[in-house]
């Protein structure tokens, strides 16, 4: 199950962070997302040598914490998407697919002329879309 998704701006400022758990663990998830930014930076600064990853936006598994797996994605505008999941066996393809859909939702949200770049994303439509994507992720990985 996806427990948290986040959008982090290029100055590592949180733009959108949403947890999908019942428990009151927002703080923990904030910390996990915040922490994973270091790994994102590291991945970006030391890219793997292999050729096709040159323009790869998907950063893969950032780090496994005790109970979570954290995946990252970096857009061309250096906006980071972070996914925290409790699933232990996640297929990369699923995550890639998730991020692709999430990215398009994000692009739509920031294309709104009333959105101020660099400010938090407050669009309700975006939130709804994200929760749909998150739900469908749970289904596809379960099935």
């Amino acid at each position, binding site marked *: 199950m996806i427990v948290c998704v986040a959008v982090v701006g290029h100055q*590592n*400022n*949180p733009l959108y962070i949403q947890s999908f758990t019942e428990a009151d663990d*927002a*703080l923990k998830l*904030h*910390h996990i997302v*915040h*922490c*994973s*930014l*270091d790994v994102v*930076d*590291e991945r970006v*600064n030391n890219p793997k040598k292999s050729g096709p990853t040159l323009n790869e936006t998907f950063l893969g598994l950032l780090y496994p914490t005790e109970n979570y797996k954290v995946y990252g994605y970096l857009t061309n505008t250096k906006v980071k998407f972070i996914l925290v999941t409790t699933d232990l066996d996640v297929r990369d393809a699923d995550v890639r697919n998730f991020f692709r859909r999430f990215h398009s939702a994000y692009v739509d949200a920031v294309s709104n002329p009333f959105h101020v770049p660099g400010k938090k994303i407050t669009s309700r439509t975006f939130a709804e879309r994200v929760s749909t994507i998150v739900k469908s992720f749970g289904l596809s990985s379960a099935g």
Partner: protein
Amino acid sequence: MATMLGQSDPANSPLGLMLLDEITPVVMVLRTPLVEEACLKNGLNLVELLTPFSTFNNIDVPVRTASDQPYRLQKFKLRLFYASDIRQPNLEVAKEQLKEVITHAGEKDFSDLCSDPPQIEDVLSTPESEILPSWFQFFNKELVRSLSFSDHEAFDHPVACLLVVSTKDERPLNRFVDLFNTNQLPFLLNDGVMDPKILKHYLLVHDNQDGSSEKAEKILTEMRSTFGSNDCQLLCINSSQDGLVEHEDNPWAPYKTDASLSQPLGCFLNIDDFNEIKDLMQDFSSKHIIPHMEQKIRVLNQQVSVTRKGFRNQIKNLWWRKGKEDTPDASNGPMYTFSSIESQIRVLGDYAFMLRDYELALSNYRLLSTDYKLDKAWKRCAGVQEMMGLTYFLLDQSRKEAEYCMENAFNTYLKIGSSGQQNATRCGLWWIEMLKTRDQYKEAASVYFRISGEEPLHSAVMLEQASYCYLFSKPPMLHKYGFHLVLSGDHYKKCDQIKHAIRTYRRALSVYKGTMWSYIKDHVHFHIGKWYAFLGMFDVAVPHMLEVLTCGHQSKTTQDLFLREFLQIVQNTGKKFEVLKLQLPAINIPSVKVIFEDNRTYASPAAASVRESMWQSLEEDMIPSLPTIRTNWLESLPKNISKKHKQSNICVTGEAIKVDVEFKNPLQITISISSVSLICELSASSEEMDCDANSSTSELQNDEESGKLTISREQTSNSSFTLSEADFSLGGGERIMVQLTVTPRIEGILKVVGVRWNLSDSVVGFHNFESNLVKKKIAKGRRKAKHSPSDNLKFLVIKSLPKLEGSIHHLPEKVYAGDLRRLVLELRNQSEYPVKNMKMKISSPRFLNVGSWEILNTEFPACLEKKTDPEQRVQANHNKESHTVFLFPEDTLIQGGTPFLWPLWLRAAVPGNIPLYITIYYEMGDISNIMRHRTLRMYHNLQVLSSLDLSFQISPCPSRLKEFLVRMDAVNKTSSEIFQIHQLSSVGHQWKISLLQPVETMLPSELMPGQALSRFFKLENVRKLTTPEDKVSLLAPQEGSDVKLGSEASNEILFDICSSPLADFHICERIHQEGSHQEHPNSVDFILISQPSNDSINTGLPNPPPHLFSHHVCHCRIESTSPIWWLMEGPRTIHHNFSASFCEVKLKMTLYNSSDLSASIFIHTLDSIPSTSQLSEVMAGSPGNQAGWYDTSLLNDIKVTSDVLGMKVGKPPSLDSVSQFIWSGSCSTKVEVEPMSTAVVPLQICVFSPGTYDLSNYALHWNLLSSKDEGSHGKCPGSPYYLTVLQSA
């Protein structure tokens, strides 16, 4: 060995030094109590006494181990332990010790924690050693030491035994034997873990205070003969008799940690003793220990070579071990005694390691690790791998191999469960040091994380160390640094190490400061605050709690918790906390608005919020332009008002300055705010001059300072002004606009500094209005934009003045369009001084008009009724002043609070939200004041709802010249109001309106909501040719004609549309409705007057004052655009005998020129047949229908007219048929018609056969004879005229 030298020598790395310190030969010390006694005179026990001399930095001993190549050993160290201490430390005791260490460190580090946490940039630039708490090293060392003397490792096993007996002992030789034979020997020797045949060294200690050493010499000789001459030595101590020896660089000091020294260390040891001890230890190491170890290495190596080296031995070993397959899979594996080959290899390896023959050590460890693995002796296996890792590291050969070994060992330790945890920790610490040496901080951090374990205190320290690793990694991983600090802080908190918790959190703060991660930030600040409060440091706690107050993003319960905690802490400080820029509630600074009254006064707050430019344009021609006024009164000012004040705002003593401040609650919970008031300074005018200089110097430099400064000022000068206080509570997310006032009591300079409030009665918040922020708003609202910022909130207070207060009685907020009613303006002046020369101007005369004084006492609407006697009529304000300024009568004086009343007329002209601006100018009766005049500005907003939708349609009467049919359509657009239509009037003397039908036959005149109504009227043009003089007065409706529409007899009266106010309003309406129409002489204005029905469905107002509705529709025009009206006259039906001759019909056309210019008209008859010719033939077939073309209804008439016209345009004339009639006589006639006059033109047609003919195939070309007007000509097609010609018998 070459590898031991050089800069990047691993031996010089922290780990190398640590290993050189920790993995060294152990010497077991056995002594008699008397020896101890002698030593304790110096404040030291025997081991302490000897320890400083058992570390050698330059021992320079040649060593030859297994290989034949000798090498020299420089650094060497012996570890001395009493036999009783050679055992595994108690875990619980060790833990307690560690806890003590941490607590102690916490106290020590806490002193500097009250300062601000450092910036993250500073943290990054500080060297490692300064950031890392020094006690980490100590803690780690203690942790490693807690694992000493384990049975699976050999480096802690004593290499030699030092037996010490005092000369004072009885039978010292026997004592030596007894010492070693007691049961007190450590378990290592007794359990068979190590060889009990250990190198022994006998030492006789002589205390020189007990007499000469002669006896000692004797015993020594005896010893030598018994134990061997090499192994016995004599040590004489305490040679100093007085005990006052001071040692420079006291060698014992670093080893003795507890500072509670009653006497200086080694006070009885003089330089001879000192040297003797030194020599003793040097000798012991180089002549006994090292050779002994060399010897042992060689022996063991020989043994190992014999049993294990070579192909044959390996096969044998493998086979032999396979045979032991059935051994129990215990975590420790099988028990290995000292005589087993495995133990011997281990000893060999460890000895080689300690003598730094790492190659030899490594080969043996390797050999051993496979054996242990096969035996499944995991703990031993891990121990060996650990050593392999260290050996690889010190050899600096294969980094990968070293790390692999460490990881392997670490994992193996973890695998064996809880018993291996401690070992895993030690292994981890060594591994970490290894990684740190190679700058692999990130990896080191993850190892720290892995060894953090279960126990909170332990994991707290480990996590904190991990966090520093992230900080030191290149590039620094600050996010993880912060996170691990927070984790560590939580663990510290769990084991009540609050001070450490605060320390780590504060460090973490430097990471989160300035970021947007508010949840994390709030958490950190809140906990720091809470913990400080827990420690009783409330003053330090408050700033942190302040940080979390504006946590709008948090949940409601969290907000509640934060606020409660904050208030509690503040209460605990025991004083009213004063906080500058308290964030709760938030103040919307751009919304701050200052309203003050100088010579502009306002009747209501709404009036004050109207744009200044609006008022200015209104007052433009009423008061002399402001600059001149200003200079006027400034010129008359005494000189002492400096030029500086010319620009500052002026306010009047006793009149309040209002400041609107918007407070917003950023939280979801309710907060209570009390005692909200302004912070002001007022310097009296007497001291004004000197104050000027002062105030400019004491400008608000420092926020903090000024906050305090103002309070004191306010308290001292409290009597000079009064402040209003407001209390309110703000619900979640609520905004509230609060108006605060300051009323100066004396003349001088008043300065509004800021605002203060109490939050929940315990915190005082301040906010200074930074002038540049307020400036914007002020500049926008006021006329002075070029002020220096500080002047905006600075006021020159002048002495009190009369001030008019005004209000309008009975002004409704909501009316229906057309509503006409009388209002009363009331003016009051509370002051004793009169005001005079009053003028008034109203922004929209269309809606509001000034009445005349007399009607104040008459009854409404009776005063509007048409009087029979023209003398009594109230003359309309024909003068143009109704648009400009109304002058009150010269003798009007208002003073002393007596109300002054004046009537006003209100007429809601059009629907919408209508702002009404009224400004009243007045002058002071008392000329002595510097301000001569003031204006009172009143503003009201009127909501006008649409009521009747009225339209008129005028069409020429087909049968009569100069008469028109008027159709009035009225729709009641309201939802509840019933209108009783009373009268319709046409305005102007040239029109006369009358009913088409008698009143009795008409429908009821009540118009229900939503109902539509149509009425028809006849309108007659009674216009005469006017002289130019008359034309001027055309605008004013002098005359009019009225039609009464009310069906009831009670409504006998007619209202006079020609007198004020109806006439005045009508003029306005005319002007407004003019629009794009140009003034046309043939337009007519109508006024429909209706009354609210008595049984109107009540709109909510209980008893509305009497009112009328008047609807004005102006510039109604006749549909034809031509100024020429004509009428064809002639017979309609003719009998004629066509067999005799064709028929000639004489017709007559009457032309009327309705314009003011004479017209030339050209009648052109066409012989082409209009499209109706076909129709006429059809009609001819039914000659009986003679009366078929008469109109039946007027409504149809209008329609037909238009239809016929349309048909003519639409259908092209058919040219193929021949006309049945021809125009005879002249085919074109031209006539000149004078203005407003008629002309008659005879026409004639010839008809050749019977039938019905449409004689519309002619056109009128008209041309107004005017030189300038180019649009005054046109063409009119003929109107239908049907003629039926019948064959006569």
